[in-house]
Structures are given as structure tokens and as C-alpha cells.
């Protein structure tokens, strides 16, 4: 081993965001020469949990895959099941889904802007953008009844209607946010200190973004024209004026520009949806048992494309549920983005993909490549986990698991 090189672990306690993951970073001086991304500390077993419950109960598990993209995940799941059951949701429900999805994008991008500001020591921006985000969260709470898990989606439509007084409140907040976002755009495009700090950091070229399968604002900031809302319109997106915002900076600065411009675009989409929302029902009846079949559903979350796979066996419980969150696709290019940059840039590069650790964590077994099927039961998984920690000096075998 080269004596000039030093390897340091960042994490697993809060490496940059308040979630667990471990980045093993090899440095030469201040420069990162190698990075290994270690996720998997927050596996929740939600796919298996979904397979053990009914479709209606699953809605609330799927909504909790991600705390920020909760609506987009449940939309993808509902779409898959509605398609399997051959049900078409009413147009008003599709519009309400779009309004919620875009409000979610607003609050997610404002949240990210604050985090990015915090990571580069620009805490004033954190205070401003999170103050503005509160306004969106209040609107979401008014519409859905909760600030984060809105619970607006149900199988066959939406659960709550948009009332006239809510429309006025949303318009008021949109006017306020438009003014604020003009300031953020001005800040991103004109403030030289921000451009100097973020420019050239965490580079991911156009070719690499395609090679590593980046999605969402990360891909769009590398000039990749991809957006599920346009590529494969769902809900009422085929009628919406969606602009795919791309940028050619290919770095963290580009990701900032894309996001602040997307806030403005989302405001336009919500205004259009509020103007043109049709009257009528918000829900159609759904059967409890879903016909056998399989379905893949895609939606555009604030962080990128969510993919849900549902296989039904004709009962009221799914046979298989697979969730591919947007961050899972963006992790693959992370090591490449980190290499060649300074240690001090690592937190902002990690934060720039707007990662969601627990959304991505799934249990998997690395096989020797000879094929064959492996099924691990609970006992074997538990034994594996005990051995894993024992090797690292922790004996967890005495721990008792509480029974409900």
C-alpha cells in the first residue's frame, strides 16, 4: 500500500445528511482517489411487509418508502394496481394527483436548496428556503391532512377533494413562492461566491450520466433530456405544460440551477392545473381482489424516476412488490463523482444527488455467478447478521427481540 495514501471512513453516523451510510474514502493529500459507497444500514423489509398485507394496507407502507417523495411512490403503486384491475381514474382525481405531485416537488427542491446551503456553509439560504418550504407544507397539510404523508391517493382515485377556499390559499402561496424563487434563481445565476464554490465540483459528464443510469435532476444537469412526466405521461401530465429543464454544467452548480428553475416550472404546472381542473367524481370503486398479472409503473419523483413492479396472483394481497426509488439509480455514479475532488467537497457532492438512504436499502445476496436459486429464511438471516457484527467486535446474540 502506498504510504502517502490514507483511507478514512465517513459514516455510518450522518456522513453528510441525517441518515446512515458509510463512504470509505481513500485520500492522497486532500484529493479523493477512491471512494466506496456503503449503503444498507437502514433496511426495513418493506417489500416483504407489502406482500404480507392487502392492497389497501400496502398503500400506507408504500407511502412511507420515502418521507419526501411519498406521494409519487403511492401514485406509482396505485397506477400499477389500477392498470391490473382495468380501472380508469376520474379526470378530477388525475388533476389532484398532479397538483399534489408538483407541490411535493416544490417542497422537496426547497428542502434540498436549504441542505445544499447548509453543506457549503451558507446557512442563511437554509433559513430562507426552509421558511418558504413551511408554506408548502401547510398547504399539503390542508389538502391531505398531514404535512409529509398526505395520504391523498387511494386505489381508484384520491381520498380528498379540492375545495374552493383551498384553491385561493394555494394561489396565494404560489404567488409568494414565485417571488422567492425569482430571488433564488438570481442568487444561483448571479452570485459569484456560490458559482465559485459549486462550479466544477462533483462532475458527471453527459456520457457518464447515461452510463451510470442517473435519473432526475442529476441526469438533467448533465444535459440528459429525461423526464418521465414527458417521456411517458401519467395521471394528467399529458395535458400539462411540462418543460424539461436541462443544464450543461455537469456539476453541483448545474444541479442547483436545474432545481431552482424546476421550482418555477412546477408553480406554472400547478397554476395550469388549478385553472383547468374538471368537475366530477374523485374516486371509482375498486375490487378488493386484483386479477392475476404483473405491471411496471413509472413516475417522476422530485429526485428522479421511481419504478414500481407489482405482481398479482388474483387474491387481495400482492405476490411480489418491487420498489426502485430514484436515489438507487443515482448511487451508481457517486464513486465516480467523488473521485478527483477534495475531501471538503465530499458532503456537498453526496448531498447534491438529494440522496435518500432508507428508500434504497434492500437485502440482497452476492452469488458466485453460477446461477441457482437461494432462499434465506429468517433464522439464517438472523445468524448471518449476528456473525457479521461478531466479526466486528459486537455480540448482539443476547439481544431479545420484542414480540408484539
Amino acid at each position, binding site marked *: 500500500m502506498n504510504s502517502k495514501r490514507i483511507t478514512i471512513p465517513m459514516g455510518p453516523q450522518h456522513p453528510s445528511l441525517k441518515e446512515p451510510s458509510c463512504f470509505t474514502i481513500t485520500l492522497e493529500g486532500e484529493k479523493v482517489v477512491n471512494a466506496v459507497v456503503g449503503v444498507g444500514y437502514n433496511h426495513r423489509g418493506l417489500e416483504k411487509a407489502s406482500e404480507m398485507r392487502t392492497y389497501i394496507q400496502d398503500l400506507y407502507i408504500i407511502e412511507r418508502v420515502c418521507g419526501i417523495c411519498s406521494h409519487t411512490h403511492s401514485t406509482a403503486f396505485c397506477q400499477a394496481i389500477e392498470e391490473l384491475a382495468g380501472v380508469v381514474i376520474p379526470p378530477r382525481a388525475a388533476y389532484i394527483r398532479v397538483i399534489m405531485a408538483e407541490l411535493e416537488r416544490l417542497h422537496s427542491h426547497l428542502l434540498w436548496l436549504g441542505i445544499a446551503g447548509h453543506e457549503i456553509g451558507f446557512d442563511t439560504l437554509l433559513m430562507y428556503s426552509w421558511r418558504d418550504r413551511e408554506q408548502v407544507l401547510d398547504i399539503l397539510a390542508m389538502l391531505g391532512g398531514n404535512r409529509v404523508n398526505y395520504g391523498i391517493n387511494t386505489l381508484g382515485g384520491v381520498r380528498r377533494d379540492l375545495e374552493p377556499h383551498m384553491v385561493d390559499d394555494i394561489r396565494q402561496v404560489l404567488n409568494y413562492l414565485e417571488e422567492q424563487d425569482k430571488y433564488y434563481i438570481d442568487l444561483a445565476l448571479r452570485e*459569484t461566491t456560490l458559482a465559485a464554490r459549486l462550479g466544477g465540483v462533483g462532475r458527471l459528464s453527459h456520457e457518464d450520466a447515461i452510463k451510470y443510469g442517473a435519473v432526475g435532476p442529476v441526469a438533467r444537469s448533465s444535459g440528459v433530456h429525461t423526464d418521465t412526466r414527458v417521456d411517458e405521461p401519467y395521471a394528467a401530465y399529458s395535458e400539462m405544460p411540462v418543460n424539461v429543464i436541462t443544464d450543461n454544467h455537469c456539476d453541483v452548480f448545474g444541479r442547483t440551477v436545474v432545481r431552482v428553475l424546476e421550482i418555477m416550472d412546477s408553480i406554472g404546472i400547478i397554476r395550469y392545473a388549478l385553472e383547468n381542473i374538471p368537475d366530477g367524481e374523485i374516486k371509482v370503486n375498486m375490487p378488493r381482489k386484483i386479477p392475476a398479472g404483473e405491471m411496471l409503473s413509472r413516475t417522476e419523483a422530485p429526485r428522479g424516476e421511481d419504478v414500481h413492479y407489482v405482481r398479482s396472483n388474483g387474491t387481495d394481497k400482492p405476490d411480489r412488490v418491487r420498489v426502485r426509488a430514484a436515489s438507487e439509480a443515482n448511487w451508481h455514479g457517486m464513486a465516480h463523482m467523488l473521485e478527483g475532488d477534495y475531501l471538503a467537497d465530499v458532503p456537498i457532492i453526496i448531498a447534491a444527488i438529494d440522496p435518500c438512504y432508507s428508500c434504497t436499502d434492500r437485502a440482497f445476496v452476492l452469488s458466485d455467478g453460477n446461477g441457482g436459486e437461494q432462499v434465506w429464511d429468517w433464522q439464517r438471516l438472523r445468524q448471518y447478521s449476528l456473525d457479521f457484527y461478531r466479526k466486528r467486535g459486537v455480540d448482539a446474540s443476547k439481544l431479545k427481540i420484542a414480540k408484539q
Partner: protein
Amino acid sequence: MKKRPGVVAGYAMKQLFRKPATIKYPQGDLVIEHNYRGKLSYNPANCIGCNLCVRDCPADALEIINVGTKENKAFECHLSLGHCVFCGQCVDSCKKGCLALTPNIELAGLKKADFKMKL
């Protein structure tokens, strides 16, 4: 577009004269929407004991118990607040309108036993 440092400065000065964005809590006025998904309420008058709410609860937090006889039924609803995820699916599932969500969000307690309650 001309790039320059200190774009934030003028805006930052303006913020000095704005009202605080935060409220004082618990002393101040907390505004909770009337349709907020808080603690569940139960009206046994119309309950027929169909158990649809129990069946659809994703968190296994509800229990409907017949405390009367087979002929004269009287139902009680037991809720485990520690398990409830406040999704409101039970309210949607109830055909008789016996369940409703209230905007009551101040549910913290000191003992675990307090979270198991009869509604």
C-alpha cells in the same frame, strides 16, 4: 446577466424587519386545520361490528369488541395510539360513519399503558 458577489446582502437586510416565521409553542397560537388527521374518535351508535376498519388498518391498531350479548350488541373501540399511523383508512372503510379523525395532535404521554385506550 452580470455576476457579482453579495447578491444576498440587500435581501438579508430586508429580513431584519420581517415578523418571525416561527410561533411560540406551546404558549402561542397553534393553527391546526379542521381536517387534520389527528386522534381518532368513535361513535358506537351506528356501529354494526362489521370489522372492516380492523381489516383495513395497516398498523393493526384497532379493535372492535362486542361487550353486549349476542342479541343486544354493544360495541367498544379500542385503539393503540403507539401503533396508529394516522392514515385515516378506517374512517374511509367505515360504511356507517362511526369513525372520524379529529385535529387533536397533542397526544404525548409518559406511560406506555396510556397509549392503549378505549375510544
